[in-house]
């Protein structure tokens, strides 16, 4: 449910370091809470995102939520397939439903994120 190799924000985003880049999405907890995601708004490639500032929006039939950047940096890629088929957020939040890839400006920000255990404690789930 909460892969060990990821880092998590308190706003329910995940980050995965891939070489010098960071892949970002939202957690299964957030996806379950939203349920039935119908719409995603992502930033443009080349734009800057800032640590724990909104970078986009995810919307379900029930509610709309801001997406918060777990790292500062430049957006080098966005998941256009997700914009066209946002419902995969509910089925594959750590895989096909990645949202943006960021070139991090300051990897020290990672230290402020949670590991899987701390995140699970935050959302009140016990390790499986």
């Amino acid at each position, binding site marked *: 449910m909460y892969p060990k190799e990821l880092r998590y924000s308190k706003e329910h985003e995940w980050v995965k370091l891939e070489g010098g880049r960071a892949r970002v999405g939202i957690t299964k907890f957030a996806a379950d809470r939203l*349920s*039935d995601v*119908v*719409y995603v*708004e992502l930033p443009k490639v080349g734009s800057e995102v800032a640590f724990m500032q909104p970078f986009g*929006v995810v*919307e379900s*039939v*029930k509610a*709309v939520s801001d997406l918060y950047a777990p790292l500062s940096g430049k957006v080098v890629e966005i998941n256009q397939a997700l914009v066209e088929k*946002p419902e995969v957020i509910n089925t594959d939040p750590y895989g096909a439903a990645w949202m943006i890839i960021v070139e991090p400006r300051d990897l020290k920000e990672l230290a402020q994120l949670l590991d899987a255990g701390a995140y699970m404690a935050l959302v009140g789930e016990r390790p499986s």
Partner: protein
Amino acid sequence: MVPFGGWEMPVQYSGIMEEHRAVRARAGLFDVSHMGEVDLAGPGAGPLVQRLVTNDLSRRAAGQALYTPMCTPDGGIIDDLLVYRLGDERLMLVLNAANTAEDLAWIRGHAHGDVQISDRSAETALLALQGPRAQAILERLTPAPVGTIRYYWFREGVEVAGRRALVSRTGYTGEDGFEIYLDGRHAVHVWDAILEAGKPAGILPAGLGARDTLRLEAGLLLHGNDMDKSTTPLEVGLGWTVKLDKGDFVGAQALERQKREGLPRRLVGFVLRERAIARHGFPIREDGATIGVVTSGSFGPTVGNSIGLGFVPPEHAEPGRRIAVEVRGRAVGGTVARLPFYKRDAEAG
């Protein structure tokens, strides 16, 4: 569960989309016991209701239900309700939960003469069995020929899973289906029996979330969102429920005047080009100017688009007209659409 008009209500069981699709393709069961039920009895019952509602109760026989707004003297909609004609001197009103107390005070305040008014909301449960397989499922639980009940007709004293109920062919989803009124003490038994009997047919329990997306696709209005005391039936497209020729009723003069002088605004349906949801209160724009406001909006799971209802000036109301909805500071383009967004095949019913 969420609080709703003083009741704890399930927003969803398995998921809004899944429940929505079950109702369109198979069947869904809703617990809408929060609705208010008020019995009126006595020779004064019919005349009282006829004076308070805009539609014409005299055109309904015993065994028939009537959908109607109830208005203020200014023509504002206090509530929209169903009136069941149980007999010559016996009526049941079905009211929106959030309005039941206010409706009751209004009705009692207008009651003169021989009518007994009893609020039966607390002890009455209401289960809505909706979808193309609703009839087949209900037939497994009752000896009564429920298939012969026509749209907007009902039968009293029908045994459903061994419990007496009033069964009416009505609903709020745009599908065929039944609404089952019964003693609250039997609600859990009948709920469980319907889900069990409907299992082979693929029934799902459905919550408030799916109820809202289903009614919106069907172009049905929600009091408190799409209409209230500041809007008239004529403005929200309920002109067909205003029978100015039936004799005097509360609001008749104001509605007659509005009909003569023209409408200041009209409630229309719209479809957006993107899947962003237009939510209640978002501005409707044309060429950068605000021309109206969204009253309801959602993603329509069956129509596959972002849809909504909102007020616009009458000259912007014709289907096909381009509008935009301001969603979080951004104009999302769309067009005025003909209602309903979804209409079931007649054969399926």
